């Protein structure tokens, strides 16, 4: 089983939360949500660059499904 890597740039649709603590608050939500997706084994959000690094199993999930999930949560998503 080989894992694939994906990096997405996300931006909250309606402005960002707190510059200090809000960042980590948002980060944990995002990571937790992605980690609960079937097939996603790693999700790491960088609150400075707004990039999220994802490791997933292509047999179980694909980038469009991951992107869709993030969009449903209200993030704007771009490929990074």
């Amino acid at each position, binding site marked *: 089983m080989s894992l694939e890597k994906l990096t997405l740039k996300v931006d909250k649709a309606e402005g960002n939360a707190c*510059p200090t603590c809000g960042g980590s608050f948002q980060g944990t939500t995002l990571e937790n949500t992605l980690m609960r997706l079937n097939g996603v084994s790693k999700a790491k959000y960088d609150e*400075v660059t707004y990039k999220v690094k994802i490791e997933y199993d292509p047999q179980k999930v694909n980038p469009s499904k991951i992107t869709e999930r993030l969009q449903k949560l209200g993030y704007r998503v771009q490929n990074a």
Partner: protein
Amino acid sequence: MREYIRGTVLFILTVVFTVASWLILRTGIAYASESSIVLALIAIACGYRLYAKALRLLYHKRITVQLFVVIAIAASIAAGYYIPAATVVLIILAGTTLEDYILYRTRGAIEKLVNMSPKTALVRRDREEVEVSVEDLVLGETVLVKPGERIPIDGTVVSGYSAVNQAAITGESMPAEKAKGDYVFAGTMNGNGALEVKTEKIAEDTTLAHIIHLVEEAQEKKAPIQNIADRFTTYFVPSISILAAVVFTATYVLVGLQQAITRTVSIFLVACPCALSLAVPIALVGAIGNASMRGIIIKGGTNIEKVKDVKSVAFDKTGTLTVGEPKVVNIRPLSNHSKDEVVRYAAIAEKFSEHPISKAVIAKATELGVSIPDPTKFNILPGRGVEAYYGKHEILIGKGMMDTAVAEEEDKAISEFENEGRTVLPVILDKHVVGLIAVADTIRGNSRDAIERLRRLGIKTVMITGDNMRAAKSIAGQIGVDEFYAELLPEQKVEVIGKMKSGGVVAMVGDGVNDAPALANADVGFAMGAAGSDVAIETADVALLGDDLTKVEYTIKLSRKAFSKMKMNIAFSIAWNILGLTLASLGLLVPISAAVLQEAGCISVVINSALLLLYK
């Protein structure tokens, strides 16, 4: 989780080095002050993640409060305040670690739901039972669920009988009986019987997975009140920078450099918009998480703000306030016949009919232990009743079958029942009425309680139904709603909702399928018993997964509480910042107290909001 461990370890190291630094300084041994400085610097270094992040933010041209903190610490070191600087780092690390932990716990409500779903399932393949990962199940396969285990998939019971606790989905701990043909949900807890379930939905398609996704999405949907907080946050950094510059210059001129540095450092440390920006999102996560553990999905912050203002609630009758299935509520034998006899003849005639009323009669006969032989011949006359033969006897059921002149006694009994809103079935055996069976939809166990609770909150209750006036009046009277409207077409229900809106925010409670237009037109639509219908869960503003109507009142109370916490927290944060900044500007706050004040403010807000999770 690893984040917290790392955070905690760094915090502990900071404490150890700071204390050591301070103790060594007091011993007065050789090189005490030099050693003390080194230890303090090590303690300060433990906050490296703070500095790294601030520098990276600066590199990406984002000026944030974190930069202030780093400047403050650097300034303290430059001014020779090593131990105070270390103490500030210690306080900040303590605050962040604690905050992260509380946030993690607040998010835990979802984690609980996630853990409800088993990762593996016992499945029958090639006549053998094998344990496989839930993700590898194939639709249509038969999964075996042992007593006391959680059901891994959504599907239909093919054999077995058990009482299943569906609290994971509906929030109601009364077990539901499940037998062949019944639908079960992933995540629910099997009782004492073994079940064989045909797999219909797995992994992310299960009802539980949908619920989790919806809760995640709801927690991200901002409450409108957040905009107030955001507006403050936007102006925060520029305002603080200007204030710091003014205070520094003024103090430098009037008092001196040292005092100017101290005051500026204090301003930088005490200023934090975090309480402000965290107040609302955490309250939101807490309230929605709280609701989700009780089988209530509130779709985002906007709905919390609407629900808190609800002035009147409209309920659909059939299937919402009532069970929606007719039941035999009275049997009146006439002449010298017995109750059992009346039910038996009726049941024989109705045995092969699929009509809900027939089913009610059969159910009653079964309940009374009356045996039901097959009719020799039977015929349904739509709109009139049933005609059947049993041996030599002719059995007729229904008011439409009574063409002979009705005796006074029968007539009186019929109108008595009808005035109570019942449907009356005369049972006619060989041209003689042997008895009357009264059938009615029954009220849900908690309807009356639900209405009473709303009344105590000062909320008006209205029942709207397409049913006839008499049945509506009877139900309305028993439940105790303030008003009712009967014989309404779906579009007329919408009109009633429209009229109610003149009296303030209107909530509508229905099953989400038949009353979709009315639900959509109300300010807040509550879909009840939504667990079985993905459409109802998706479209409702608030989905009650079970059918406990008292949850309507709970949702309103929870929303009121959540909103008042949001307001309280925002007001508190603003006041706290103003207080801190004033004290710091006047030189009444040393840097350490400034850091303590800031963290205390932030943590109080976080805790206050997180407590919503425990609200009952």
